[in-house]
Every structure is written in C-alpha cells, then in structure tokens.
C-alpha cells in the first residue's frame, strides 16, 4: 500500500512525460493517492507495537541499507497531509502556459519526495526521498516563479542542499555511533539500540547538533530561515503549497522520528539552544513578518514563524507537547497551503500582492475573502481549527516542563513569549486581511480588476476540502490523536 503511495506520483510523472494528458493524469493520481491514504488510515490499528504496512527490499548488504517502508500514526498523518495538499495543489494549478507537462512532473516529484520520506523506515531513503524534491523545486521556482525568482531559486536550492548535507553528516555519524556489527540504517533497529543505551552521550550531543542544524535549515529554524520567505514569495502557488505545507515538515518529522527517540540525552543537552532559536522564530521572525509589505513575503515569513511553535512542542519532549507538535504539523500544513493557494489566485487576478495596492477585494471576490478569512483564523490559531487544538497542546506541554513554585524557568518564559507570538501573528494576519479584503477598493486599480472574478466553482472544491480538513481536526482532534497514540511511548508521560 505504501509502495503504491510512493510510486503513484512517480508513475504518473513518467506517464506524463510519455505523453498522457498532464493535468488529468496528475489529478487522477493525486486523487487515488488521497483515497489510498484514507484507506490506510482506516486500516491502521492504533495498537502499540511499531509500524504497519511493512515492505522491505535489500539494497546493500554490506551497508545494511534496505528500501523499507512502513507507517505508524505519525507517518500516516504526514502522509494524509501530503496526499491532501498534493490533491489540492494539483487541482489548484492554473493553466500553465509554458511546459505544462514539466510543471506537473515537478509537482509530482516534490510530492513523491515528501511521501517517500514520510513512509521510509530506512534512514538512507528517508533522507534521499526528501532530496528528490530539491531539483523539482528549483525548476518550479525558476521556470514558473514570479518576482525575483532567479535569486529565490538559487537560494533555496543551495541552502537546502547544504543543509541536507549537514543532515547527512549527522545521519552518518549516527550510523557510526553504533558499535560495529549492529550498524544499520533501519529506524526500528536503531530505536531498539537507542532504547538499550547503545549510543553514548557525547556522541548524542554531537549528532543532535548536526541533526538540529540540518533539519533546522530544512525547516527554516532561525537563523537558517532566510531562504524561506523569498522562495515562497516567488514560487508558483501549487509549489509553495506543497513545499511550505508538506515538504518543510520533513525536518520536523525527522526531529520527532529520529532526534528525540534516538538521542534523548542530546536533546536534553541542547535544550536551551533550541529554545533560544525557536524564540528567534517566534518573536524575531514574527516581528519581521509584521514589517512585510507584500502578502507573499508575509506568508513566507509567517510560515517560518509558525515553525517555532512546532519546535516548542518538540523541545518540550513530553507527551502533550509532542502530540501537539504532530497535530500542529498537520494543521499548519493545511492552513499555509490554503493561504498560498488563495494568494496565488489573488496574484493571478490583480498582478500584485503589495498591500498598499490592494483593498476591498472582499466585495469582488466574496468566496476568496471568506476562505482567506477562515485560513487567517486557522493560521492565528483560533478555536475550531486544527491549529488551535495543536497550539493548546504545545503550550500546555511546554509550560509543564520544569514548572515549579519558584517562578518562571526556561520553558515557562518560552511559553509566555510564544503566547505573545500569538498576538503578533494576529496582528500581521489581520493587518493583511484588512489591507486586502476590507476597506474601500482602490479606485484606480479597481477598473483593472473588473476582470477579477471570484474563484470558479472548480477551484472552490479544493479550498473547501482543505477547510473541511482543518475544521474536522479542529473539532475532533482526537481523530488524529487516537492514531498518534502508539507513536509516542507512554514512558514520555513521565517526562517533566
């Protein structure tokens, strides 16, 4: 089943290259993938005891690299996110003027990379699949991007390329840290080894730092974030949706999957650093977001900022925080994809995303305004949306770490500041909404936008799909939490 999921986009890409109708094929494969993901979710039994839907092929005996796929709750949720966003991204793709085939192929490759990474149980393929998306992203931004696409494409590619090599070093060190004979890239075996204390503490510190930097670059952890706003601002909407919504979660997924369970002491050791950096994301980047004067840049920055919350959940390393982080990954993926999709549609109609040039679009595009409003609410974490449930868990999880009567310690201060970040995000999101949809329309530009109709019915469906997803999770977070239950061991409950 996972094999199918991983290879469906690749197969579709190949078919498109061979000449089958691009959009149709892509849409069909995405829809089937989504259906299969739902099926997998349905078939998944949230019982303790590891991964399900296993399949494995040996690639290198001497290195013990296997192509093995498997999923537990966390991966299933990420797969669901990937499938949903892919479907919507493909659906949302406007008519492409140049090289339509290539566009869909790139899109499918990005998705395949994400899906593959989430479904892999072998660190080698876990890493490799993520990189599969690198070049398609480069092409997507470079060929079909807008604004300063050239600089954006270079920056994101080189930044992520270098970042992932740092990550690779971390993974190799991890591989090497295990005594000879037990060395493996298999996640499950490594977990067993780590559980038995097979990885020495100094090695853990080293590896965790490398993984943190490597994953951090991929997730745009402060101060390695400066690729993200520009890239997302320039990328075509479907690419931004997939990248910001799904692919970027890879780094966080990696931290949840690898760094914490395998290197608990390392995580403990670097805790303060992580907190400082994530506050950089929340406060510093949050403020920088306020200063943005264009929607695309603002969304790019906001997606960087929100990573801070997920990091906070991860850093808290207890059951509440981790569950929160996992749900927040899903929630943020959906909401940011929705925002980028709508921003892309607005750009297509108005040819600008500069706040001062926009205004009063709510009258012209009521549906877009409505949907954007919901996405805004989701992004700033209002109840009813998945983001809220997740953020609440993150805050509760983080606040509890090391709490005592003496006053506020590291995590309490961090939580308080992160809470302030919620205010910041309300400020910039509402300012943006106010500038774009509310207020009197700009007379001079209004005339040009007469030809700016609301979203067509076709385009409304993916929007509704995404909104429905975030609402359902927001109303019933248990739907995800029950799936997640076996992922985070109960032993974490004892964590401070």
């Amino acid at each position: 089943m996972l094999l199918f999921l991983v290879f469906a986009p690749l197969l579709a890409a190949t078919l498109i290259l061979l000449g089958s109708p691009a959009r149709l094929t892509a849409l069909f494969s995405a829809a089937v993938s989504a259906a299969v993901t739902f099926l997998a979710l349905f078939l998944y039994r949230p019982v303790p005891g590891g991964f399900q839907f296993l399949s494995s092929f040996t690639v290198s005996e001497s290195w013990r690299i296997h192509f093995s796929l498997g999923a537990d709750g966390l991966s299933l949720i990420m797969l669901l996110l990937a499938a949903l966003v892919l479907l919507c991204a493909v659906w949302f793709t406007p008519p492409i003027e140049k090289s339509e085939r290539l566009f869909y192929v790139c899109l499918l490759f990005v998705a395949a990379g994400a899906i593959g990474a989430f479904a892999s149980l072998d660190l080698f393929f876990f890493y490799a699949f993520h990189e599969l998306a690198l070049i398609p992203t480069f092409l997507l931004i470079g060929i079909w991007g807008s604004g300063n696409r050239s600089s954006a494409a270079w920056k994101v590619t080189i930044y992520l390329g270098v970042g992932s090599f740092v990550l690779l070093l971390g993974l190799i060190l991890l591989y090497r840290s295990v005594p000879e004979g037990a060395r493996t890239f298999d996640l499950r075996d490594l977990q067993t080894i780590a559980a038995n204390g097979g990885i020495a503490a100094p090695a853990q510190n080293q590896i965790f730092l490398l993984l943190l930097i490597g994953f951090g670059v991929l997730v745009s952890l402060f101060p390695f974030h400066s690729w993200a706003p520009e890239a997302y601002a320039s990328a075509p909407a479907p690419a931004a949706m997939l990248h910001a919504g799904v692919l970027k979660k890879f780094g966080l997924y990696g931290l949840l999957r690898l760094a914490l369970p395998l290197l608990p002491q390392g995580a403990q050791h670097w805790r303060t650093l992580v907190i400082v950096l994530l506050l950089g994301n929340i406060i510093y980047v949050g403020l920088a977001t306020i200063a943005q004067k264009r929607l695309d840049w603002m969304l790019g920055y906001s997606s960087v900022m929100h990573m801070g919350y997920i990091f906070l959940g991860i850093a808290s390393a207890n059951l509440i925080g981790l569950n929160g982080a996992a749900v927040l990954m899903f929630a943020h993926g959906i909401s940011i994809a929705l925002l980028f999709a709508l921003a892309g549609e607005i750009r297509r109609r108005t040819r600008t995303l500069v706040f001062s040039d926009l205004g009063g679009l709510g009258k012209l595009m009521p549906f877009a305004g409505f949907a954007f409003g919901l996405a805004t609410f989701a992004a700033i974490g209002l109840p009813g949306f998945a983001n809220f449930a997740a953020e609440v868990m993150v805050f509760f999880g983080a606040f509890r770490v090391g709490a005592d009567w003496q006053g506020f310690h590291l995590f309490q201060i961090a939580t308080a500041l992160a809470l302030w970040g919620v205010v910041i995000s309300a400020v910039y999101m509402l300012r943006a909404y106010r500038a774009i949809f509310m207020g009197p329309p700009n007379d001079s530009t209004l005339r040009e936008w007469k030809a700016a109709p609301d979203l067509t019915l076709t385009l409304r469906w993916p929007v509704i799909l995404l909104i429905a997803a975030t609402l359902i999770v927001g109303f019933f977070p248990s739907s995800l939490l029950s799936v997640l239950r076996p992922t985070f061991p109960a032993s974490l409950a004892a964590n401070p």
Partner: protein
Amino acid sequence: MIPAPVLEIAVLVLGMILLLGEAFAGESDRRIFAIAGILGLIAVLVASFFLATAPPSATQGFWSFYSADPLAIFFKRFALVTTILVLVMAIDYAPAIQAGVASATRQAGLGEFFTLPIFTCAGLMWMASAIDFVMIFVSLELITISFYVLVSFTRRNPLTLEAGVKYLILSALSTGFLVYGITWIFGLTGETNLGRIGVSLTTANIDRVPILFGFGLVLVALSFKIAAVPFQIWVPDVYQGAPTPVTAFLSVGSKAAGFVVLLRVLAPFLILPEVGRLLVGIAALTLIYGNFAALPQSNLKRLLAYSSIAHAGYVLVGVAALSGTSVAFYLVAYLLMTLLCFAVLVAVGSSTGDQIEDYAGLAKRSPFLAFALLIGMIALAGVPFTAGFLGKFFIFDAAIRQHQTFLVVIGVVTVGCGFYYYLKVVRAMYWLEPTTSEPLTVSALSRLTMTGLIAAIIILGVYPQPILNALR
C-alpha cells in the same frame, strides 16, 4: 577460464587489426571501425568476467610487474567501459574530426582517431595492474603519449593545438619529476617493485627524508594525472581545447588510472605519518580550488574541467581516508555522470557551441538531451537517487570514520558551490528561452548509450551493491 593478461593482448590485437584494416579500407566509411572497436571491446569486457584466478605476485618475472587482484580487474573493466563510451562519442564527433584534420580525403584521420583510444585502453588496463614503478612508468607513458596525439588531433583548430602543446609540456615536466622521484626511491631501497619497497620501508633502517623527497616527486606526477591542486593548472585549458571525446577520455580514463596508481603507490608509504597529512592538504586544496573556480565559469566544457578537479578532490578525500571502496565507487559514478555530460556536449556542442548560454532552452529543442544533461548535472552535484550521491555518501562516511573533520567541513561547503554551478546549466536548459528553435537530432546509438548511462546512474544510485561486491 581466461588468464588476466590475455585481456590486454586481446585489446592490442583488436587495435592492430583495426589499424591494418584501416590502411586497406580505401574510401569506405570509417565509422565501421569504431563500431567494430566497440563490439570488440564489449567482447573483451564480457571476457573479463570469466577470468582464471591469478597467481600470487612473484619476486621476479611477469607477476612481479603485473597483478590481477580485484582492484586491477575492476579498473580494467572501468577502462574498457570508458573506452567503449568514448568511441561511441567519437562516432558522433566524426564530422568535427574531419573538419579538424586537414587532409587529402574525407575519411583521413578518422581511422586513427578510432583506433588510438584502443591502444590507450590497453595502457590503462596495464596501469591498473602495474605493481612496479617501471611498469607504472611505461604504461603511464603509453597513455600520456597517446593522449598527446589525441589532444592535438584536430590540428587545424588552433585551440586544439594550444591545448596539445600545454599538455605536452606540462605532462613532460611531470614525467621528469616522476622519473626523478622513482630514482630516489630506487636509490634508497634498491627496488622498483612496490611490494618490496614496502618491505624495505618497514624493515630496513632507512633515511626518511630522501624517501619522502622521492615520494613527494612521485606524488607531484600523480597529482598532475589526477588533476589535484597544485598541479591542476593544465586541466581547464586542455579540457577546453581538446576534442570533446578526448576530453572525456582524459577526464575519466586518465584520471582513474592516476587514482589506481596513487592507491597502489600509497600503500607502502602510508607508514610514514607525513603522507597522510600531505594527502589531507592536497584534498582540501583541490576541493576548494575546483569548486570555487568553477563558480564563475561560462563555458560548459571548461566548467566540466573545473568540476573534474573538484571531483578529484572528493576522491582524494576518500584516498586520504584510506577507503579504496569509496574511491572506486566514486570513480564509477564519476565515469557515468561525466561521460553522460560529455555525450550531450558532443551532441549539442558540435552544432551549437560550448558556452552555457548555448544551452539555453535546450529543453525545448531536445527534451531528451536536456533530460540527460539534467541527470548528469544533478548526479555531479550529488543529489540522491543518483550514483553521484552515493559516491559522496561513501566518501563522507569514510572521512567521518577517519575523523577528518576538516575535510568534511570543506566538503559540505563545496557541495554547496557544486549545486550552484551545476544547476547553472540546468537553469540555462530549462529556464531560459532558446536562441534558435532548430531541433537537435541525436543518433540512435548515442540515444541508446545515454539512456543506458542514465539508467546506470539511477540504478547505482539506488542499488550500489554490484560495485561494492566487485571490490570484495
């Protein structure tokens, strides 16, 4: 079961038959000789899988010069594959040869152009087996001299000649140092056989300084062959000026042979601590120079030259980390991806040019070629699911295992540079609009070859075990 030395003999016989045939062929299409050469080499390649086990190396006689250990066999096959692919390219390149060799008849020069690589191949194969400095010297010179000829082959083209002269002088200079270095090593140990040199280095109470002096000079010559800093200086000019298939041959065959010899020569000298340090330094400089200087390049062929220096740097990291497997795997990956790039270069360059801007919009003119070059470039850059990535993976692993933190850091930085300059080509092909819309045609053979190379790059990028097994 075939004894190993028969392989070289078969190659030589093939070369001579073709040479003779060429002399009597009159005005017929010379490309038939290339095809024949390719088929013959494929036969030898197949035969190389049915070798009899070689006797252990002797103290004197044939087996004191010639080794048929797995490393040797591996690089013999490597040489054969390289030559086959170069010949395929040469067929496509024939028009440029005809234009470059001014002569009485249309077909003149082609026959030699197709047969010389076969002799070079024999030299490469001998070199893979050479375990004695004398043998190393003669086979190295065989290769060098045939490259003198090949590099300057299209002598009507002044650039080619310029490249030929630069290669000639600098290569001869390096030969001088090689000889002098061997002299010193011989003088101190009284031996030219690497195994016995190793023995005398460990047992006898030997002056370290003169030995190191000799070794240093040998290293100069070998660095020259593998294009390691500071002896990389000839590479960009010669690569750019030489006929493209020759450049490909030079950058793969000659370099790989240099690495085999380096691995063999290093073995006895590694007990000297200075050697490891020296290698680390050279590797670091090579990485930095190759990758940094490639950044501003605008000529694709020259870019590949710098990239070839850069890759020599990665392989040297593997050498410095004493990991033969990773070196061999990297070289295989390097062979596949470099030859793929050169194959596209031959197909496009002959009609359009070598500047990167000439590749603008290649995706529109020929999606297949653009895709092939895309794969080549991302493989060179080290993107996963290509052999290039696994190569870097093994190299980095080896370096980490040996705690070569310094090299690893430089490696990561230079990988970033690599992304820039390789993707510059991708950018040209896919982003930019073509200057001409004239479609490009690719011959069926080239198309087949490129498809094969692409497949090999991807398959090895996922399933490296065949190569790893071959070196067991």
